């Protein structure tokens, strides 16, 4: 490494490959970069901290650590859940430290933002130097500079061993054979041959850094302007979707099974209606959503209705005589007479998991499961409504209305099936895919394409050719070391190398 460089500058060389960039720098002249007129961020201390690797590594590790919590502690539950699960003390801390929704907490989001700033300032800081390293690397480097490189070797060869065209041309063929792009400059008595390859690998890390910002930007866009809603729909129902200003009609719903009875997939036949006209028709299933006007409808689930029935079976018993009078099948929301009595019944409500909210004094279904099925029945005697009590499938002994001379037992029911559709809009998703594409491209470039540079400084003196060979390999240190030594070996035996070349490339043979 060139001497007299600050650790930050050495790091910059490693990261950008701009080996010659600091060559002219004298030891102790660190202020040179900030000599520019006017305000400039580049080279300031704050930027060097923000763009530092140390910060990046710390952020990755802190984020990894924090992310773990969210996988063990249920996210997004009500505060009471945490105190009842983890006790008052720990549950309280979980809520106070926002671990109950850690990925949206201010500190998690701040760390992600800081990571973006880190990536962005790294690009800002080093991209110009990278470009220099790729296209305007110093070719005419001194022997001292070469000596400071990781790989360095000196060779002395007799001049007459050089093939025709001279040493420079010979070195050029040796390097080109290994796919180096070669430049040559003359400097008085000396000639410098410079070759490099894999420059695209340099662009990789910058691309990856920028793409992270694109991906998070797309995510932000989606969370600000997008939504995900779940809805249950019934066959033959038409539902207005205000977010898209159209209606969705479910024509059909069915389930496919494997021969062993397992569910294979389930399907909903959907129409999108605009002003009464069908503008789109699609049969959706799991993994095959419908997209219309930026909104997507996913086949998410299916199940028995939790708020309506096809019909309910009730048993009627005489209260006083404990005498069974008969059973009636009550169609949903339709008045039906009970034989052998003067009663008519109508099922007006159904909940699959009965719950009562004392604040609003209303009944609702706690879940979509059939935890506590209940029906509300309007009871008519000779056309006059007596009341609308609730009856429970699991608790037939609960008979709220004492005024009528009958027990009514909720004995069975058939609920229609709903199709569970997820309705989602995410305007950021294309941005996320674009960012992902860049990220993968950038990572493959920076992980598989290695930037390598080799300089050969030639001095011809009294019948001998002195070569100073120095090189710099990015990332794949051992691979470069190996290649460097092979290059040196090739240079050291020009005649043999030349014949190798002739074998390798047909042109030489043909020309000869």
């Amino acid at each position, binding site marked *: 490494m060139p001497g007299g460089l600050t650790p930050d500058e050495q790091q910059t060389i490693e990261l950008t490959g701009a080996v010659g960039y600091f060559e002219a720098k004298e030891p102790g002249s660190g202020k040179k970069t900030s000599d520019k007129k006017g305000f400039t961020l580049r080279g300031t201390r704050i930027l060097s901290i923000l763009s530092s*690797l140390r910060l990046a590594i710390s952020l*990755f*590790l802190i984020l990894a650590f924090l*992310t773990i919590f969210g996988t063990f502690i249920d996210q997004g539950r009500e505060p009471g859940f945490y105190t009842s699960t983890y006790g008052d003390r720990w549950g309280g801390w979980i809520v106070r430290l926002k671990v109950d929704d850690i*990925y949206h907490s201010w500190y998690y989001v701040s760390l992600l933002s800081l990571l973006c700033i880190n990536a962005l300032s790294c690009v800002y800081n080093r991209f110009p130097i990278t470009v220099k390293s790729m296209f305007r690397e110093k070719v005419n480097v001194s022997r001292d500079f070469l000596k400071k490189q990781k790989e360095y070797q000196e060779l002395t060869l007799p001049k007459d061993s050089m093939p025709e065209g001279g040493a420079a041309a010979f070195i050029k063929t040796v390097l080109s054979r290994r796919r180096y792009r070669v430049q040559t400059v003359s400097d008085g008595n000396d000639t410098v041959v410079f070759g490099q390859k894999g420059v695209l690998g340099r662009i990789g890390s910058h691309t990856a850094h920028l793409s992270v910002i694109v991906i998070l930007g797309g995510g932000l866009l989606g969370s600000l302007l997008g939504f995900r809603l779940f809805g249950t729909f019934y066959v033959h129902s038409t539902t207005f979707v205000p977010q898209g200003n159209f209606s969705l009609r479910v024509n059909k719903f069915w389930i496919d099974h494997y021969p062993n009875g397992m569910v*294979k*997939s389930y399907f909903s036949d959907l129409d999108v209606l605009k002003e009464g006209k069908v503008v789109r028709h699609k049969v959706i299933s799991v993994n095959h959503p419908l997209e219309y006007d930026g909104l997507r409808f996913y086949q998410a689930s299916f199940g028995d209705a939790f708020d309506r029935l096809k019909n309910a079976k009730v048993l009627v018993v005489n209260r006083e005589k404990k005498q069974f009078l008969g059973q009636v099948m009550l169609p949903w929301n339709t008045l039906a007479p009970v034989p052998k009595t003067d009663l008519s019944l109508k099922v007006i409500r159904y909940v699959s998991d009965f719950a009562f909210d004392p604040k609003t004094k209303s009944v609702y279904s706690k879940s979509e499961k059939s935890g506590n099925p209940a029906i509300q029945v309007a009871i008519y005697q000779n056309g006059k409504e007596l009341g609308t009590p609730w009856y429970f499938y699991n608790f037939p002994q609960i008979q709220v209305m004492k005024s009528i001379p009958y027990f009514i037992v909720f004995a069975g029911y058939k609920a229609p099936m709903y199709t569970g559709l997820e309705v989602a809009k995410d305007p950021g998703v294309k941005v996320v895919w674009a960012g*992902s594409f860049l990220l993968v491209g950038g990572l493959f470039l920076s992980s598989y394409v290695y930037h390598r540079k080799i300089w050969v400084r030639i001095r011809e003196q009294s019948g001998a050719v002195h070569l100073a060979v120095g090189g710099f390999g990015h990332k794949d240190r051992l691979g470069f070391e190996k290649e460097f030594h092979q290059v040196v070996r090739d240079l050291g035996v020009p005649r043999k190398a030349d014949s190798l070349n002739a074998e390798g490339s047909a042109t030489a043979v043909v020309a000869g």
Partner: protein
Amino acid sequence: MSVINTIGSSFLLYNTVVALYLVAGILYFLFLISHKKEMGQMASTVTFSGWVVNTAALVGRGLADHHAPWSNLYETLFLFSWASILGYMIMEMKYKVRVAGAFVMTLVLFAVGAAKLLPYRYQMVEPLNPALNSYWLKIHVFTMFMSYAAFGISASLAVIYLLKKRSESRGTTGWILKEFPNTDSLDDMTYKAVMVGFPLLTLGVIFGAMWAYEAWGGYWSWDPKETWSLITWFVYAAYLHARMTRGLRGAPSAWFSIGGFVSVVFLYWGVSFIIPGLHAYAA
């Protein structure tokens, strides 16, 4: 066709794979002890035959199931072994490090051994549940397991590095560890394996996100499996950044790689068994 179906859904090929890998593992260790070149060559040959049978087992399952042969835990373990051995064989050819086989094979034997210890109902050919029934299953899972294999190889090399380093610091080259390349090469190869794995992990997670967008309505749901893949990604991102300059080398780097692989194992097994979520297809 029915013959293929019968072989594909039977355990004949899978059992052969386990047997061949076991023999190869023993041969690699014998090679370590005896330093006999022929032993090493034999180990490599058996490994290669095992891998061919492994390929056949995957293809057979695929034909019998009519879906990608990595749709449950049992099948993915054999995908892991397939990818690890493939990666190892490439490494063996390129870097002439036959001895590393002993350690990579140990890891693979843990995987296929675990597969064989699974309850019988988990080992069988099973039809796919609706969410898994997608071409993304082929792409996403395959890419993920290629990256797991690379990380597994990296961790195996890291273990060798640490053993070799320890024996060196005691002043002995180690009677067994003599065959191994020098610590510098091991260190570099550990890093390289991660460099192969990291872009694949990223690609695999992105494929997963694309699948989630097709199946669940959102590309990211903070489901435990997704989240652990992000944690693993953070860990290896930290590792790669730390390696970038000459900061992280040697033993700390080796431990870091092993730590990363612990995260992979948790992502693969821990999440399926400890934390329920959308990916809970194992049970």
